[in-house]
């Protein structure tokens, strides 16, 4: 029997008791992401690590081994005797910093361009969509590789290289929202009252954009962190003195058969962060979507279709 009626119990809402029992799960993404940010800020103060120092006596120790000076190598050591746990902690700082800076830059540029294109008009709008067409002709990571490779290695270059395509989803979304908001009554009223256009945009248009921008920023953050790790894995972008999960994973690639832990742990930590940032973004998204039910807000792009996907492919 495959009738529609037999399917009904499955689709029906689950009993409230079961729902309540699992309700705490919704706090997992925000807690995990919070933990990473905390580690990124405080971790390096508590854990000592010198990326340049090498101690050949402690090379390739397995997880849980004791170093020659009696310390614990919780996650093992790399071929130069450097502690993997410390690299994971310091890498968190690198990833979170670059992620936050890139998303901030992308959002700033994207929202500005999007509002101008959506609210002010056709010429800017046409120019915007054509430039997006051109930028999307390159896979984002290829563009980032080229830009980061052309200029001298630094965090700034990596941030700019990643933001080069990162602003696009912000611009698209803001533009769409500005287009709908500009025709609402209160905007018309403000215009009739002679409120300057800049004030209208800041007071009456931008507040509607901010919620979904936060949701998009969360999603974007995960993609940027992945992309940065990808660049570091390829040995492009960050100076060799900085600590990054991507670099550590690349180191471990050469020692897979003897020291699996070098690659395994940083990647695990990276995947955990990206997955939870993505979940958090989805939560933000459904929250802002619900509160915008009155029809002001167009649907914000979901993860699969943020128009970026490029970094998601790493």
């Amino acid at each position, binding site marked *: 029997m*495959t*009738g*529609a009626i037999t*399917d009904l119990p*499955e*689709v029906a809402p689950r009993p409230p008791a079961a729902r309540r029992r699992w309700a705490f799960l919704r706090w997992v993404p925000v807690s995990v992401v919070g933990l990473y940010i905390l580690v990124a800020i405080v971790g390096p103060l508590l854990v000592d690590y010198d990326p340049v120092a090498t101690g050949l006596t402690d090379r390739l120790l397995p997880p849980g081994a004791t170093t020659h000076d009696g310390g614990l190598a919780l996650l093992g050591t790399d071929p130069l005797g450097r502690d993997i746990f410390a690299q994971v902690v310091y890498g968190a700082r690198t990833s979170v910093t670059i992620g936050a800076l890139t998303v901030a830059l992308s959002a700033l540029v994207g929202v500005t361009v999007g509002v101008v294109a959506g609210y002010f008009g056709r010429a800017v709008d046409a120019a915007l969509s*054509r*430039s997006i*067409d*051109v*930028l*999307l*002709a*390159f*896979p*984002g*990571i*290829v*563009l980032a*590789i*080229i*830009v980061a*490779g*052309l*200029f*001298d290695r630094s965090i700034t270059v990596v941030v700019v290289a990643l933001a080069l395509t990162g602003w696009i989803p912000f611009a698209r979304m803001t533009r769409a929202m500005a287009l709908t908001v500009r025709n609402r009554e209160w905007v018309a009223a403000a215009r009739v009252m002679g409120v300057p256009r800049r004030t209208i945009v800041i007071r009456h248009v931008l507040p509607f954009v901010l919620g979904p921008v936060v949701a998009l920023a969360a999603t974007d953050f*995960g993609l940027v962190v*992945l992309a940065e*790790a*990808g660049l570091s*894995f*390829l*040995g*492009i972008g960050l100076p060799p003195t900085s600590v990054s999960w*991507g670099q550590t*994973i690349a180191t*471990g*690639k050469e020692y*897979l*058969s003897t020291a*699996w832990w070098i*690659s*395994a742990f*940083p*990647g695990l930590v*990276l*995947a955990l962060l*990206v*997955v939870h940032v*993505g*979940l958090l973004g989805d939560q933000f998204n459904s929250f802002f979507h619900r509160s915008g039910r009155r029809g002001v807000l167009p649907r914000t792009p979901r*993860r*699969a*279709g943020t128009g970026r*996907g*490029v970094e*998601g*492919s*790493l």
Partner: protein
Amino acid sequence: MTGVVLRRLAIGVFVLWGAGTMMFVLLRLAPGDPATLLLGPDASAADVAALSERLGLDQPMVAQYLTFLKNAAQFDFGDSYRFGQPAMDVVLGRLQATVELTLTATVIAVVVGLALGMLAGRRPDGRVDRVVSGLTILLQGMPTFWVGIMLVLLFTATLGLLPSSGTGTPAHIVLPAVTLSLPFTAIVARITRTSVAQSMREPYVQTARSKGLTELQILTGHALRNSLVPVVTIVGLQMGALLGGAVVVENVFAWPGLGSLVVESVSNRDYAVVQAAALLIAAIIVVLNLVADLSYSLLDPRVRTGAHR
């Protein structure tokens, strides 16, 4: 229909021009003299002077730009200093490996993604749906280069079943293609799920049920066919991401394609090759987007006959 095709073609040409212009600007913005950059660090002063002459670096920027466009239109990006042959030849030599890799990955992603999406969309919010949606989130969140390394750890270092790098036998393509396909499998599965779930609520599925068709017949005959349109669209749109993913994956598995060439060339400052490769990739993406657009209209009768517009 012809109008649509012509319009798309015009946009494609415009995008390629824009992409070329961007490369031109980037190379002029980078620190150092473009001729030295293009010829690489080992170039002699005489070679640099000769290229400066040929590129017209002593001329006004506008003239330089026009020369660049003229050469680019003839696929002439200068010689690779590392290989000592025209950059475009070097790039074209690596194209086949990348095409093999991305095509295999696309096939895997579409087949597995459609299957997963159908299973999940059959009963939205059911147990299978939850498992699949968890899986897709995981697949999209894991860095492919790391997944690749972990697969090597499992299948090469531990089990000794598959080769970890290089080319040669069909077995060589398994790990890179599977690695590359994973995030796209997730995307295809998500799209298929949404579309199948939608179809399952349609009256014609009720009709099919009441006719006594099996669940499998309904899924493949009615629900799946309707999800092909969004899947084709997303595959076309994701080709850029797929090529980007290939750049990284090729480096993990020492796959001799465009991606490893781009990274080698960037690291060795062989910018003639970088330019040629970037613009070839851009051209491929533009063409594929065009094809996806057009096949979209072929697959959907409403678009094909113009009844919808």
